C-alpha cells in the first residue's frame, strides 16, 4: 500500500504536468482545473502516507550496474516534507488561478510547478543517494525555469541563471559524496551509509560531510551562497511561496537532517554547521532590516529562518529543526502569498511606495499579520513553539556564542517584520493605484495557511512519535504534545527569548525616541544592501562558470562530421584501453 501511495505522490503531479502542457494554452480554464486537481490528488496521496510510515524500504526497482537499485522509503522525515511539498503546492496552485489570470503561457507555468512538486516529493521519499541527486537536479531545473518564467525580462533571466549556477555548484558536493559512498560501501542506500559510517576511512567521510554541507548551504541559500535567493524574487509570488520558502530551500536542511547520524562524528563538522547557521541567520536578519522591497525582505527572512534550522541541526536538535521547518513552511508560504496579493493590488514591490493599504485590504492584512506574528515568535502561534524549542536545544547542547547571537537574531526578526507590516499596511498612503482586496481563489489559499499557522504547534507530539518510530539511526525520543508544550513554556530560555522579541517590537514602535541609537547603526545600511560583500563572491562564481561555458562552445559547432569524429575518437580510446589495459 505504501509503495502505491509513494508512486502516486510522485507520479500524479508528473502526469498532471504532461496533461497541462499538452493542452497548449488554448483553454486556460481547463489548465487551471487540471493543475488544481492533480496537485490536490498528490496532496491526498501524501496525507494518506501518514498512515503507513515505516523504516524499511517500501519499493525497490532494481536497475543494476553502477546505478544500484532505485529504492523508496516512507519514513517520518520523508512523509513530513512530502506532505508540506504537495499541500503547500496545491495551495500555491490554487492561488495562481487568480494571480496569473490573463498571463500567457500558463501551460509552461503549471507544468513546471507540477513537475517540481513531483520531483520534490521524490527527493524526500527516496532512499537511494543517486536517485536523491537526480531529483535534486530536477528541482533545480524547475526552479530556474520558473524564476525566469517572464523570459523577456533580463532581470528575471539573470536571477534564474544565478540561482541555477550557484545551486548546481553546491550539487557537485552532493554528487561527489554519493560517488564516494558508492565506492566505499558498494551501495547508494542511505540506511547503509548511516549504519556503516564509522567504517569509512576518516578522510572520505570528512570529504562527504563537508561536500554535503556545501550542497545544503548552496541549496538553502546559506552563507556564503546566500545571494541567489533575493535575486530569485523575480519569480511570480506563488512560485516564491512554493519553491523559495516552503520546499526547495528546505531540501538542504533535509539533507543535513537525514545524514546527521553519519556525520556527527566528523571533527569540526558540527561546529561548521553551527557557524553557517548562525552567520546566515544574523546577517540575513540585518539585511532584512534594511530592505526596501517587500519580497526581498521576505527572502532575507527565509535565509535567516533557514539559518535557525541549520543551527538546530548543528547542536543536535533534529526534531526541533524539522518542527521549525513545518512552522516556517506554513507561515512563510502565507507571508509570500499575502505579499503576492498586496503586490497584485498595489502594482509595485517597493516598500517605499506602499503604506496605508490596511483599510482597503482588511483580509490580506489579517492573514499577513498572522504570519508576521508567527515569524516573530509570539506565543500561541506555531513559530513560537518551534523557535523556542530550537533555542532551548541551543542553550543545552551548543556553544554560548551561538546561542547569544541567535537570541539577538530573534529580536531583530521581530523588529524587521514589524517594520514590514507597518510600512505596508499602516501609515499614510503613498500610492494612488486602484486597490482591491484579495480575490476568491487567493483567499481560498490564504485562510487555511493562516489557520495552520495558529494550530500546527499542536502537531508536535504526533510528529515526534512519527520520527522516533521510523528513524532508527537518529536517536530521538517521543513525547506527547502536552509534554513538549509544557516543557517549552517552563524553560528559562523561552522567557529570555520572549523578552528579546518584545524588545525588538518595542524598538520599532519607539523608533522616534530611539532615533539617536539607530543613527549609530546606519552605517550598516549600505553594506547590508550589498549583502556584506558576498554578492561579489557569488557574482564571481557565476561569471567564471559562464566564461568556461563560452570557452567550451568552440567544440560545439554543429558540424555533424566533427561530432561523428568525436564519437569515433572516444571509441578508439576505449578500445585501446580495453586492448592494452586488460
Amino acid at each position, binding site marked *: 500500500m505504501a509503495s502505491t501511495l509513494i508512486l502516486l505522490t510522485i507520479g500524479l503531479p508528473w502526469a498532471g504536468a504532461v496533461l497541462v502542457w499538452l493542452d497548449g494554452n488554448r483553454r486556460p480554464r481547463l489548465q487551471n482545473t487540471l493543475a488544481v486537481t492533480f496537485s490536490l490528488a498528490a496532496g491526498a496521496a501524501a496525507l494518506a502516507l501518514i498512515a503507513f510510515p515505516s523504516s524499511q524500504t517500501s519499493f525497490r526497482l532494481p536497475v543494476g550496474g553502477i546505478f544500484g537499485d532505485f529504492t523508496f522509503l516512507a519514513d517520518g522525515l520523508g512523509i513530513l516534507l512530502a506532505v508540506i511539498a504537495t499541500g503547500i503546492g496545491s495551495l500555491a496552485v490554487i492561488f495562481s488561478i487568480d494571480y496569473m489570470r490573463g498571463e500567457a503561457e500558463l501551460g509552461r507555468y503549471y507544468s513546471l510547478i507540477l513537475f517540481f512538486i513531483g520531483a520534490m516529493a521524490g527527493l524526500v521519499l527516496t532512499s537511494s543517494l543517486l536517485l536523491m541527486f537526480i531529483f535534486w537536479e530536477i528541482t533545480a531545473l524547475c526552479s530556474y525555469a520558473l524564476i525566469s518564467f517572464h523570459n523577456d525580462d533580463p532581470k528575471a533571466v539573470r536571477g534564474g541563471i544565478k540561482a541555477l549556477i550557484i545551486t548546481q555548484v553546491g550539487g557537485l558536493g552532493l554528487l561527489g559524496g554519493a560517488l564516494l559512498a558508492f565506492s566505499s560501501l558498494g551501495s547508494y542506500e542511505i540506511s547503509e551509509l548511516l549504519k556503516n559510517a564509522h567504517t569509512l576511512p576518516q578522510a572520505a567521510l570528512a570529504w562527504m560531510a563537508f561536500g554535503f554541507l556545501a550542497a545544503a548551504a548552496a541549496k538553502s541559500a546559506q552563507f556564503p551562497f546566500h545571494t541567489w535567493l533575493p535575486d530569485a524574487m523575480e519569480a511570480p509570488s506563488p512560485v516564491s511561496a512554493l519553491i523559495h520558502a516552503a520546499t526547495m530551500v528546505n531540501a538542504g536542511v533535509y539533507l543535513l537532517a537525514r545524514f546527521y547520524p553519519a556525520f556527527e562524528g566528523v571533527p569540526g563538522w558540527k561546529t561548521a554547521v553551527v557557524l553557517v547557521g548562525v552567520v546566515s541567520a544574523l546577517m540575513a536578519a540585518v539585511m532584512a532590516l534594511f530592505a526596501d522591497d517587500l519580497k526581498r525582505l521576505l527572502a532575507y527572512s527565509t535565509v535567516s529562518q533557514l539559518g535557525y534550522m541549520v543551527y538546530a541541526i548543528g547542536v543536535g536538535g533534529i526534531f526541533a529543526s524539522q518542527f521549525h521547518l513545518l512552522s516556517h513552511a506554513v507561515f512563510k508560504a502565507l507571508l509570500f502569498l499575502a505579499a503576492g496579493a498586496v503586490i497584485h493590488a498595489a502594482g509595485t514591490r517597493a516598500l517605499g511606495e506602499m503604506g496605508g493599504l490596511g483599510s482597503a485590504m482588511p483580509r490580506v492584512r489579517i492573514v499577513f499579520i498572522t504570519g508576521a506574528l508567527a515569524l516573530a515568535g509570539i506565543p500561541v502561534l506555531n513559530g513560537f513553539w518551534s523557535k523556542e524549542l530550537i533555542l532551548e536545544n541551543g542553550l543545552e547542547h551548543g556553544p554560548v556564542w551561538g546561542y547569544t547571537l541567535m537570541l539577538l537574531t530573534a529580536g531583530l526578526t521581530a523588529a524587521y517584520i514589524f517594520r514590514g507590516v507597518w510600512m505596508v499596511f499602516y501609515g499614510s498612503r503613498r500610492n494612488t493605484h486602484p486597490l482591491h482586496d484579495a480575490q476568491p481563489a487567493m483567499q481560498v489559499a490564504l485562510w487555511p495557511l493562516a489557520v495552520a499557522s495558529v494550530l500546527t504547534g499542536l502537531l508536535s507530539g504526533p510528529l515526534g512519535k512519527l520520527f522516533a518510530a521510523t528513524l532508527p539511526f537518529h536517536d530521538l525520543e517521543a513525547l506527547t504534545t502536552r509534554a513538549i508544550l509544557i516543557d517549552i513554556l517552563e524553560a528559562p530560555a523561552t522567557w529570555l527569548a520572549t523578552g528579546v522579541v518584545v524588545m525588538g517590537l518595542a524598538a520599532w514602535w519607539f523608533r522616534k525616541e530611539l532615533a539617536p541609537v539607530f543613527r549609530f547603526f546606519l552605517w550598516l545600511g549600505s553594506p547590508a544592501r550589498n549583502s556584506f560583500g558576498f554578492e561579489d563572491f557569488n557574482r564571481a562564481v557565476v561569471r567564471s562558470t559562464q566564461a568556461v561555458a563560452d570557452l567550451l*562552445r*568552440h567544440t*560545439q*559547432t*554543429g*558540424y*555533424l*562530421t566533427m561530432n*561523428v*569524429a568525436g564519437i*569515433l575518437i572516444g571509441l578508439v580510446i576505449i578500445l585501446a584501453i580495453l586492448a592494452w589495459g586488460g
Partner: protein
Amino acid sequence: MTLSMPSILLVGIFSLFGVGLYGLLAVRNLIKVIVALQVVVKAVLLALVLAGNLRGQVPLAQSLGLTVLVADTVVAVIGLALAVQVRRCLGTLDLHALASLRR
C-alpha cells in the same frame, strides 16, 4: 589467427562496418549520412547472425537482430523526415552550411 571461414567472414563484416564508418566521416550531404548509417547497421546485423551461428543460439540472435532492425528503420524514417524538413526550412542539405552554431 586461424584462416577459418568464420574468421574471414568476420574480417569481411568489419570491412563493411569500416566502409560505413568512413562514409559517416567523409560525406557532405545529410541524406548520404543516413545511407552510411544504414550500411553500419547492416554490418552489425551480420555480426549478430554470425555470432548466433557460431554459438548455436540462432533464435536468440534473430530476436536481437529484429530489435536492431526495427530501431534502425525508425531512425532512418525519422532521419529522412528531418532531412526533408531541413531542406524545406533551411534550404540546403550541405553539412558545411548547416553548421550554424559556429561563431
